[in-house]
């Protein structure tokens, strides 16, 4: 459906109103009007003409040239000139602190007016821009729907794609459909993206000096699977800019199925949990499989190693079990924690003894440099071990749990977990609390009820 002449005129007007050039022109015009209005009286001619005046009634014009000039000036203007002149004289004679205050006041008033105008211009611009965007978006939604249900794809024409702004909205709409459609319709959308050479727009974004534009380019190219862009995107996986780095990493996961996590090999920046969640989400959403995560489990970047161990559990890579088991002895408490959780997911009976051993190794090692919240991490690890053992408990474990309850463990929840598991296997066993949190343990013993404790 072609837009009418009126619609085009409105669209064009909105486009002009939205443009930054228009906004700048308005601001410049405003400044010019403002400053000319203020500074005109301060011009040399005016100052010279009225230099002897003290008040409007004392106006005396000395020569005919000045008389002519004065006649050209209205009474209102004279009033302004005289007051301005008086003010200027007072300003020159004023003390420094007064001068400073006057300058500050002047700057504040100008700034305030500029802010007022800018807020309104910005609001007008935004309203016009949104209105135009909505109309254009609706137009393209209709056209794309017609395209999807049309049989004559090669003859289909879309409105206004010669303009970059229209194309940007068109690409947005196209990619939105690409995300939300499946099967043949999705392929049609992808073909359209290629046939209209829209990938050139997306690729051009990679050359932008603005990182947000570059990142948008990564997203678009990754979504429509423009594989030849991967070489250009890859270098950004080590960018100093965090968002650019994440977007590039996510794009690489999609564009390089043969080695989606290759960028991890020499990643020196910490891979935050947020990044890890996003990578996992992208891999799951696009069914991207990795044969093994083991190569990154010994990475010098600890966050990458943790990620590899977590992913091993998330993708149930049981073939990596021996490697994960080895990591129970790792010096880093965080790596041990993720290894414990991954083993818990595997839930092999063979895990039991190594986990029990690992429990007793959760003590502060003077050799370990990183002490950040180490005691909390060690307690967290102990809880994770007990959680991992919860599905593997059997009668022969009673001595382990009794030992835990008698040991100088200082955390209530570790004791609680151990006590619950002990009661599962030896409900009749009585425990004499001897450790520092014995009051709580006594309370636990007194209130023991399977339903209560399970919570």
């Amino acid at each position, binding site marked *: 459906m072609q837009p009418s002449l009126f619609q085009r005129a409105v669209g064009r007007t909105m486009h002009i109103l939205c443009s930054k050039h228009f906004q700048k022109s308005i601001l410049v015009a405003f400044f010019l009007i403002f400053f000319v209005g203020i500074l005109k009286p301060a011009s040399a001619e005016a100052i010279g003409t009225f230099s002897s005046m003290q008040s409007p009634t004392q106006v005396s014009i000395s020569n005919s040239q000045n008389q002519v000039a004065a006649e050209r000036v209205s009474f209102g203007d004279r009033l302004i000139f005289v007051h301005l002149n008086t003010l200027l004289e007072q300003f020159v004679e004023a003390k420094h*602190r*007064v001068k400073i*205050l*006057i300058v*500050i*006041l002047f700057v*504040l*008033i100008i*700034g*305030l007016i500029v*802010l*007022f105008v*800018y*807020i*309104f211009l*910005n*609001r007008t611009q*935004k*309203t016009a821009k949104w209105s135009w965007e909505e109309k254009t978006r609706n137009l393209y939604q209709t056209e794309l729907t017609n395209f999807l249900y049309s049989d004559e794809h090669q003859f289909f024409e879309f409105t206004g794609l010669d303009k970059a702004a229209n194309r940007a909205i068109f690409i947005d709409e196209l990619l939105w459909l690409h995300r939300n459609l499946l099967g043949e319709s999705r392929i049609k959308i992808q073909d359209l993206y290629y046939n209209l050479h829209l990938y050139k727009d997306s690729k051009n974004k990679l050359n932008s000096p603005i990182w*947000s534009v570059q*990142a948008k380019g990564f*997203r678009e190219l990754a979504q429509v699977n423009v594989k030849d862009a991967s070489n250009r995107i890859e270098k950004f996986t080590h960018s100093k800019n*965090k*968002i650019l780095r*994440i*977007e590039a990493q996510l794009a690489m996961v999609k564009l390089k199925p043969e080695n989606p996590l290759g960028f991890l090999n020499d990643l020196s920046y*910490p891979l*935050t*949990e*947020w990044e*890890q*969640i*996003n990578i*996992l*989400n992208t891999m799951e959403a696009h069914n991207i499989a990795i044969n093994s995560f083991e190569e990154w489990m010994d990475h010098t970047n*600890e*966050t990458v190693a943790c990620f590899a161990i*977590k992913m091993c559990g*998330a993708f149930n890579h049981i073939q990596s079990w021996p490697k994960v088991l080895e990591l129970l002895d790792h010096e880093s408490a965080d790596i041990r924690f993720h290894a414990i959780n991954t083993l818990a997911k595997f839930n092999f009976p063979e895990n039991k003894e190594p986990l029990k051993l690992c429990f007793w190794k959760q003590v502060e090692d003077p050799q370990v440099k*990183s002490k*950040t*919240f180490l005691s*909390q991490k060690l307690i967290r690890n102990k809880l994770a071990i007990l959680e991992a053992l919860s599905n593997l408990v059997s009668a022969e474990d009673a001595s382990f749990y009794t030992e835990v309850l008698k040991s100088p463990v200082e955390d*209530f*929840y570790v004791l*609680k977990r151990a006590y619950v598991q002990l009661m599962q296997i030896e409900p009749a066993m009585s425990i004499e609390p001897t450790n520092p949190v014995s009051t*709580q343990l006594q*309370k*636990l013993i007194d*209130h023991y*009820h399977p*339903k*209560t*404790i399970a*919570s």
Partner: protein
Amino acid sequence: MIELFEVLKYIIENGIIVFTIFIFGSYSILAVFSALEIIQYIRKNSFIDYDVLLTSPFAPSISVIAPAFNEGKTIVDNIRSMLSLHYNNFEVIVVNDGSTDDSMEKIIKAFDLEKYSVVYDEKLQTKPIKAIYHSRNHAFSSLFVIDKENGGKADALNAGINLSAKDYVTIVDVDSVLVDKALLIMAKPFLEETSGKKVIATGGVIRIANSCTIEDGRLTQVKLPRKLLPKMQVIEYTRAFLMGRMAWSKLNGLLLISGAFGMFDRDVLIKSGGYRNDLVGEDMELIVRMRRYMAERKERYKVSYIPDPLCWTEVPAKLSVLVRQRDRWIRGTMESLFKHFRLFFNPKYKSLGMLGHPYWFFFEWLAPILEFLGIIYFIIIAILGFSNWPFFFLLLAVVYFFAITLSYWAILFEELTFHRYNKRREVLRMMLNALLEPIIYHPIVLFSSLRGNFKFFTGEKSWGKMERQGFTVDEEKKPKKSKVK
């Protein structure tokens, strides 16, 4: 004698000017910092898909703790609203702090609660717990209700923290309305911490819900308040949250996370002692103490701040309530500053000691007192006939225009970022209100501050009654849709 008077006059007048310049300078610097931070945040945020957390097995667990005292009017709707927050791994702990109305009966009935026996670690001392409730209905399985003896907000929060066993705790005022994605957005800074720099808390912006439309405990339409005082507070909140706190977050010097909405690392919160029950400004004091705890252990840490409008709450529309609230706030500030006076220009505490604490000391606590003394001084000078009227008016004009400029900056930030008031008329009204604020609203705040100071030094510790209209008005006629008056 006259010479001595002249010297004194010179010192006082120039002292006032120097102090004013420092205040102007610091506000201007904060405005620049917050502008930089907010621009970065908005740009980055356009690439964030918070929904990835909804399905992720790596998402951290969160306890939402909401203390309630005599909130029977709205409590059921508000709990429903909290339970419907978009997050996968969370529980809601409502703490009924000895309400004398029918709050507890209403909750038990609405959510089909039964008594629940649980043994947990009471690391923080609280008033006795009467009972803990959990729902028989599986749909409300993430809801826990603690019924306890009245002990104040801090005590109720501590009871909730004791019961919580999740990674992070979110503190919410039960009468506030959270947007659906609030937890997803607040959790993100914790997931972005890099090795060696722990995120101990995240604060959120509090927006004003007066006159907004609330349906089923959810905000559906944002409107500028109709009444004068809430309208003025919109300007004040915008300035404080979008300019002040954003900049302090950039400088890692944030000393306050509003008690109405904040997320904390549970471990650090408990280790630093939880909320103190003997204070009126427990929210600020907690952050100062948590930061101090980290600094004293030489741990690198960060207090994050999210500028998105995630939490909407009702503000006082009555003068007397507003004065009581502000008087309590200033007492809270003073408690935190004086209890932790050791931080004052103490390089050991880095930005907290060298920047945050002194700033609050001089510009948040001392400024209203100096302003008042300035007024008294001017009155004396005027009576004695020594006043320099042109200079007085000039200084007054500078201060007035600076205050308005700051408010306009804040409105501009709002316009460029979240743009919640989408009618042009509303923006115009905000700008007009900004012109009136220094004349009408500021004297009220100044008076409240002085009253708070007086009460603090005379040892009064009352909280003051905070009357709320409640979101659900005319419940029988309009059970689903309501407006806050």
